[in-house]
């Protein structure tokens, strides 16, 4: 076992897969010699060469379109989109092509690509380095969406994603690249140093797609979350002394509905926390599913705690961010009766 932060774990996942499978290639803006603006691909070009790890022109449409073509040839591309906020120019290639190729060609051609992209805020990145657009992708049939919350999961899920024969959107919560954020922007940042999720095997292993993790068992309320918010939620309930069951979804599509149902049936209450804007976010789908499937077990309405329906504002980002206070208020409400 090694100790890794999330960047190192992600780097290790690509390293392991490139060593195992000569068809895995890594591409994206600044991922080559430099190793990526977050250093996630550091060292890979030196190790695997320029034909397998290379910089690309700055066209997200082209990056994904080219990756789809490489996938059709038989490669297993792992393109990086530098920030999730910059994935929109690639949307047509993702939605109309990658997501549809297997279906429309009846598996004549497939798109086994894994699109890595840092997402989420809390780093004073302003409107265009902070977004959480997962709700756009979870609505698209044919795409899988994966979001890790620990280095261990990040590596295991990324390996599973790369091996998966379907296109996977792999969003990396950049706020927790270097440590599990507690939600208090005004307190010293944590590192991964003492976190069990930072114990990561050096070699190959998988965390299966489609399986959630119960991060903390509890009886009072089920909290569904993913990415950065797993840690913010965990800190908050600890601080408030709430016996919540925290479920880290890990994969949004396909969703681990069994884990959710089981927990909600047990606790009778369900809260959903995500950083993305509220209206039409993935929380809406979770809320709808829980109501549809656990209605008669619910003792209170499903509660959503989310970012607001505004762009991510630069200076007021901590008023936007669904932090401990917003979560705490929602807990008060859902546990009221």
């Amino acid at each position: 076992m090694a100790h890794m932060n999330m960047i190192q774990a992600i780097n290790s996942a690509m390293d392991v897969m490139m060593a195992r499978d000569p068809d895995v290639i890594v591409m994206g803006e600044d991922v080559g010699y430099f190793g990526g603006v977050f250093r996630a691909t550091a060292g890979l070009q030196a190790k695997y060469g320029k034909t397998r790890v290379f910089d690309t022109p700055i066209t997200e449409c082209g990056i994904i379109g080219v990756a789809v073509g490489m996938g059709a040839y038989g490669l297993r591309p792992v393109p990086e989109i530098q920030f999730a906020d910059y994935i929109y120019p690639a949307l047509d290639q993702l939605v109309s092509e990658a997501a549809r190729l297997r279906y429309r060609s009846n598996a004549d051609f497939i798109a086994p690509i894994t699109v890595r992209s840092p997402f989420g805020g809390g780093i004073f990145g302003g409107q265009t380095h902070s977004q959480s657009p997962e709700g756009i992708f979870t609505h698209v049939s044919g795409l899988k969406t994966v979001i890790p919350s620990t280095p261990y999961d990040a590596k295991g899920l990324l390996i599973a994603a790369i091996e998966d024969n379907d296109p996977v959107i792999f969003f990396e919560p950049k706020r927790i690249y270097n440590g599990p954020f507690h939600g208090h922007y005004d307190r010293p940042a944590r590192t991964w140093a003492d976190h069990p999720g930072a114990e990561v095997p050096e070699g190959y292993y998988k965390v299966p797609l489609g399986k959630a993790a119960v991060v903390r068992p509890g009886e009072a309320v089920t909290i569904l979350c993913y990415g950065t918010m797993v840690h913010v939620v965990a800190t908050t309930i600890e601080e408030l002394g709430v016996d919540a069951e925290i479920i880290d979804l890990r994969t949004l599509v396909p969703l681990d509905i069994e884990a959710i149902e089981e927990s909600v049936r047990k606790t009778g209450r369900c809260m959903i926390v995500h950083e993305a804007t509220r209206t039409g976010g993935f929380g809406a789908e979770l809320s709808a599913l829980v109501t549809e499937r656990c209605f008669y077990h619910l003792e209170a309405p499903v509660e959503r705690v989310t970012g607001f329906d505004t762009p991510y504002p630069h200076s007021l980002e901590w008023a936007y961010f669904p932090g401990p206070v917003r979560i705490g208020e929602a807990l008060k409400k859902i546990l009221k009766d």
Partner: protein
Amino acid sequence: MTDARRSNLPPLSLHVPEPRFRPGDEVDFGDIAVPPAGAARRPDTADPASSFHELAYSLVRVLDDEGRAVGPWDPRLSPDTLRAMLRDMALTRAFDERMFRAQRQGKTSFYMKSTGEEAVAVAAAHALASDDMCFPSYRQQGILIARGHPLAGLMNQIYSNKGDTLKGRQLPIMYSARDYGFFSISGNLTTQYPQAVGWAMASAAKGDSRIAATWCGEGSTAEGDFHSALTFATVYRAPVIFNVVNNQWAISSFSGFAGAEATTFAARAIGYGIAGLRVDGNDPLAVHAATQWAAERARTNQGPTLIEHFTYRAEGHSTSDDPSAYRSAQEYSHWPLGDPVVRLKQHLIAIGEWDAERHAAMDLECAERVKAAQKEAEKNGILGHGMHQPFETMFEGVFEEMPWHLKEQCQQMIDERKAAGI
């Protein structure tokens, strides 16, 4: 008007392109420059792209008005190859005719002809290696026919019937045929362009020797994907051939709305430092030669070539379209570059390898083959008459393995059908 810099100038005005002819207009294509066949030089395939810019502005032509093959671009094909190309073009035309009629008869929802543009697909297919990978738009059915795809198979797709290997999921003519080196056609324009580049880059990265070729219409060159593709291709010198089929029209809008008033589409190549050729798209020998030349460049790591095929869309955009609403009916008959089938026929006759009777017999044979194929295909059903794929297939292939939510929805669909008593 706060600044002296422009105080004396007349106001700006917006230029909005307008085609020269509208319904009812007399057509005169005299302004289209048609250089004599054989006039364009043929650079060595190892020459740098910057050394033959003029080829993006002229027109590579091999067949002259008397049906002779002239000049350095003459690919010197054997009579057998020429006859095979002629037959594939004729067969494509017969196929189009019949399927167009099938749509009109209500047997399917949609069809798109390639009439007048058969050379662009068929001659290219003959010039490529059989396992080079094609990323076509929706108007290159000629490739599949030239590569020997069974006609009934194509028709099954058009009918979305139970023989359709695509399980009725796609609009008619949106074929996919991996075994014939033919990529799944997308409804979204030009998305295949960067995909072709990606395939070609993969081939190069793997030390393979296969190359990619892709096609789009002149209207489709405006999409951002076109630019992404050419940018990637020039950066990595991808072994890919970009074909722009300039058939003058994009549904109702003429090529001026894609930029044809200012320059040629072949000139786009120059902007990227890519080899560019402008070719008489109705001259099967020119198309063959240009493709072969571009393929040789690609195979020898000289990188991409863009070929503009100057041609004309003889029919409506699709069965949903009525071109008489926006263009003069005279245009096709006045088109200065003629009909590719007629021109190749003339050539074969001119070199003594063909005659009118054999041509008539071939046409008949093509019609019969298409008819027989149609009969075979219709045994599997036509659209909307029950002989479709099992309903469950709708949920298959969204993912490699069906997740719980699709299983549930599949069951819901089955229950629905039970509830409805069907």
